[in-house]
């Protein structure tokens, strides 16, 4: 009896917290369809803010910057990170404490320190040697730096989950290391590589602080653009673009759920 009440209380708490988690997002979505420029009252349904998005060149530039940054950095991070993950696995019997510390460094470093260190570093390089002034390239470099650890850890844990006799079998089967990589390593790793790429991409799109401090004048990403718009005095277009970004996240969530389901059913 008492336990039942306890469970019911917990269930109520769960729904309350769910409301807490989704209310701020729901408000954005709701007011993105508001015909009036207000977050206090709803004047009627309208798509005018979405129409304005399509004609906003700056915003489209920001979108393309975000995508370029996300894809370029994820590709580089995937290559470099996979190598580290592989090295970590192959040599896990050694004392690699220094490597672990180094790999965790970008994860534990506070964003603001990360961003400002890089900014100060790049600016000084630019001033002294004329290289690496704040630009899309410096943003890519910074993003790769915080993506590498995640790729490395995903790849590493995939290797750890494998039956080690497979490696021996592959060694017998394929003569050259290249063949082995192509016919054994890559196919085995494929799911984790895809996962790592998408995680890297998500991290990149999500990042604001590090991008903000390493960006050049022409490299505003979507979050930087939104930040600027909020600081300028919010225009309701922000609700619309934010709604689209929230929508993308929800779609990604549904996909990850389906993907996992299928994965479970298959195994």
């Amino acid at each position, binding site marked *: 009896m008492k336990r039942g009440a306890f469970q019911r209380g917990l269930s109520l708490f769960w729904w309350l917290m769910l409301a807490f988690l989704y209310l701020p997002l729901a408000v954005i979505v709701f007011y993105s369809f508001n015909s009036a420029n207000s977050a206090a009252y709803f004047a009627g349904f309208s798509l005018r803010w979405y129409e304005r998005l399509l004609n906003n060149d700056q915003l489209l530039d920001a979108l393309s910057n975000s995508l370029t940054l996300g894809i370029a950095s994820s590709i*580089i991070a995937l290559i470099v990170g996979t190598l580290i993950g592989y090295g970590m696995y192959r040599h896990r019997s050694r004392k690699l404490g220094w490597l672990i510390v180094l790999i965790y460094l970008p994860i534990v470093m506070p964003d603001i320190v990360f961003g400002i260190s890089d900014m100060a570093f790049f600016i000084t390089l630019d001033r002294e040697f004329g290289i690496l002034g704040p630009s899309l390239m410096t943003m890519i470099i910074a993003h790769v730096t915080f993506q590498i650890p995640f790729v490395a850890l995903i790849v590493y844990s995939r290797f750890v989950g494998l039956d080690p006799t497979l490696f021996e079998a592959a060694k017998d089967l394929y003569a050259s290391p290249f063949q082995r990589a192509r016919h054994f390593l890559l196919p085995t790793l494929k799911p984790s590589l895809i996962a790592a790429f998408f995680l890297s991409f998500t991290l990149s799109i999500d990042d604001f602080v590090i991008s903000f401090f390493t960006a*050049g*004048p022409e490299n505003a990403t979507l979050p930087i653009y939104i930040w600027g718009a909020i600081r300028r*005095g919010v225009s309701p277009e922000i609700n619309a673009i934010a709604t689209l970004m929230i929508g993308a996240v929800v779609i990604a969530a549904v996909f990850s759920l389906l993907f996992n389901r299928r994965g479970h059913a298959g195994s």
Partner: protein
Amino acid sequence: MPRRTITTPVALLLGTLALSGSALAQDDNKLYLFNWTEYMDPDIIQAFEDKYDVEVVQSYYNSLPEMTAKLNAGGDSQYDVIFPSNYYVPRLIHSGLVQKLDKSEIPNLGNVMEQFADPAYDPGAEYSVPYQWGISGIVYDTDTFPDAPKSWSLLFDPDVNPDQPFALMGDGQVTMGGACAYLGKGYDCTNPDDWKAAAKLVLDTKHRDTFSGFTDGTPVLQQIQRGVVRAGVSYNGDYLQQKEQNPEAFKHIAFMIPEEGTEMWVDTMMIPAKAPHPKLAHEFINFILDAKIGAQLSNYIYYASPNKAAQPDLDTVLTEPPVLPSDEDQGHLKFTPSLEGQNLQLFQQLWTEVQSR
């Protein structure tokens, strides 16, 4: 195995870096402007692009500290024209962030009004050309404050405004100047003791429950429209521009010049020291100084023009308050003092103190 797996990614990596590097090489057909938000007529940009067959890339800032930080952060080699206000001009000159103008490249210089031709902030106008001038004043909701005094007390006196949310300006020099003016020390005070008193007033004000934050001049107009604040500090031209665009929402929002004194500013055009396209930058400055373009600019952004030749083509709204204030109000206007060296550091410490407590 190792060698081959390494070389491919390294090659790829270098390739990517090289690609993004070459994409960065500055295009000769581009002009990079670094301007205040809502401070340019897009048609003028279009006209310039058409006339010179170039592309104009605009970036924006909300405050002068923000602009300076970006310039320090490598912006001095990335922008071609910047638009700093008078009190930042000496600072930029002395820190070497801007370059001398080549006056022979700006034949339209003769169009500049006499009172702006040899300004105190840039003797001989060696580095700067005036762009627009305006006033920082108090914007407030006339429904909530039907009998608002023409005074900073609307912001600084809790008896005058006991229970309505309000904002102060994010640019510390303007807010401190306002506090100085309210205390009777004059808007352009620089005496450390006056500053300390002003800082204390701002701190007390900030700790009032109804203080809603430090908000810059353009965003505060949005906030006041949305009812987030009922009073704040903004610029006459931005106020007018938004009022013309949205007369309904601004029916009950007024702009006021406090009698204790407030800021008159001149925004200038300057060329950063390592601007990628200095020649095009000069062309642009000259273009803005054209009589027709100058009038078009002011008619669009609702600020007073320092361009003598443009005056005949200005809309009537630009020849009356709040753009051109009454003689009495003009007497209350002061330039914001330009700070340097020890004085600047002292001010910055005070301002940080105000922000953090």
